[in-house]
């Protein structure tokens, strides 16, 4: 079992979730509330990683992060080293690849909160921030949990984008999914089997946890 790869995957998942969830809350709530021109376009862009082949996304990020592009050069300056084939690059790629998994459940959750609840909060004397903290966020909680689980599971399992942007550098970019592929290529069936079993178990536990939490939350409401 390649514990280093598993550790790296978990680290990548933690960074992605920590950086993406606040952004997804802001964007999801904005999209749930807003009726403005261009909203559908933003939704389409957010959903794009769902349907795009991961290698296509990876290819564009590779091109973008590379020193050939102005964006790549400024990112290199910002991070102090090139983003391609680095852990930082993986985090940025992971944030983009996970956008729909984080934003969509959160947006759906905020959409279920009626205008009258916010107005009831305002007329009860609660300010906008208080209303968000004490009313909207607790009510959107199931969506947040779903987003968290999906992002973690998807990050651990992501293959195409990681391979394109990060390559296969042990301790830097070789995540669990890459390590599995690596073991298969090396005809090391025992190690590959162990990695596969780990990823399967982790995915199943993630989904089971989401369903349980969502079910319990629903039970509390009804």
């Amino acid at each position, binding site marked *: 079992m390649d514990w280093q790869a598993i550790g790296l995957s978990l680290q990548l998942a933690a960074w992605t979730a920590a950086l993406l969830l606040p952004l997804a809350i802001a964007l999801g709530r904005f999209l749930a509330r807003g009726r403005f021109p261009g909203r559908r376009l933003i939704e389409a862009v957010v959903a794009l990683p769902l349907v795009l082949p991961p290698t296509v996304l990876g290819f564009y990020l590779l091109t973008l992060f590379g020193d050939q592009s102005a964006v790549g050069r400024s990112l290199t300056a910002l991070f102090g080293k090139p983003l391609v084939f680095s852990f930082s690059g993986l985090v940025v790629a992971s944030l983009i690849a996970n956008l729909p998994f984080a934003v969509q459940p959160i947006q759906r959750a905020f959409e279920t909160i*009626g205008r*009258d*609840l916010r*107005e*009831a*909060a*305002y*007329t*009860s*004397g*609660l*300010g906008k921030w*208080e209303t968000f903290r*004490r*009313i909207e966020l*607790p*009510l959107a909680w199931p969506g947040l949990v779903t987003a968290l689980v999906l992002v973690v599971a998807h990050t651990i399992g992501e293959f195409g984008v990681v391979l394109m942007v990060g390559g296969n550098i042990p301790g830097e970019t070789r995540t669990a999914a890459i390590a599995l592929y690596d073991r298969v290529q090396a005809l090391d069936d025992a190690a590959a089997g162990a990695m596969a079993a780990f990823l399967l178990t982790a995915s199943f536990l993630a989904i089971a946890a989401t369903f349980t939490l969502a079910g319990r939350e629903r039970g*509390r*409401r*009804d």
Partner: protein
Amino acid sequence: MTEIGLAVRVGQAAPIPLAADFACPSAALTALVGPSGGGKSTVLRAIAGLIAPMSGRITSGSRVWYDTATRLDLAPQARRVGFVFQDYALFPHLTAAENVAIAMGHVPEGDRAAKTEALLELVHLTGLEGRRPAALSGGQKQRVALARALARDPEVLLLDEPFSAVDQVTRRRLQQELAALRRRLAMPILLVTHDLEEAALLADRLVVLHRGRTLQSGAPFEVLRRPVSVQVARLMDQRNVFTATILGHDGAARLTRVDWGGLVLEAPHRPEFAIGAKIAFLVPTADVILHVKDRPSRGERENPVSGAVADVLRLGEFGRVVIRPDHAADPPLVMTLPNHAIERNALAPGQRVSVSLLAASLHLMPREEEPQG
């Protein structure tokens, strides 16, 4: 708090046209009535600060909440209104007690528990403090919503169709509770309803709103019996509205005579109507008096009308008798009377009857809708 209470003047052309102007005195319950979609809820939302109408001024006592002339627009949080929403809008993740306590931002933290308890007791919810809204009945939810509205110590209490989402038996009970509770409340209460019976039962004043426009305001009796226009009479569900011509005024007898399809009727003196003018008149269904066959009475000379019964409808304790007058069969004349009176007189379709229209109740109105300013 001054006697003025709440004063509202709001106007806008879109999205929902508004031209409302009315006041709600302190310690009085004012009912905003009118057909659905007439802008009643919009007016309420403007008072609460949830929408900003194009023009207007809203004051509570001596405080100005909204004034387009000075660009003043207090946030809902700064207006101290208690708002009971139509579907209650309780916070589903909070218990009944938490739903009430959340509106007590202005109360010192140490006092909130006691105040919550007192409010829940006031609305008869003791024992249900720990329940979430999903575990409460419609009537209980409505009570939590009322307690939450009162928890703000509001200057104004706004009730948006508060009884529309419960069954009829619960509605009657909640109405009685509100009638009892309001005697203990000193603030103006504004009740939005499309139920005229409810408005007449609970309100000290009616404000008739139609297409965003206040058509008339006054005591329920006044608005129901003396509508300013045929339109208000129709909105108040008055049935006996007929057209007639002014014949003459008798200042000494304080009478105005009108010609109703050839029949001369006496009405209270209204010299402002010119002789020969076409007018409309209203006679409340309860003020059409049946002549009892074997017992002629002195009142039979008062605006007598004879005709044939066209229909008899029994509704609970009272019945409605539709009469086709001989001189002008259409529209029919409707009278309400207790069911026992219908039975004793064996009123049935086809039967000949004669009735009196009480002269004092005959209300003359302009035939066309009066232009409103």
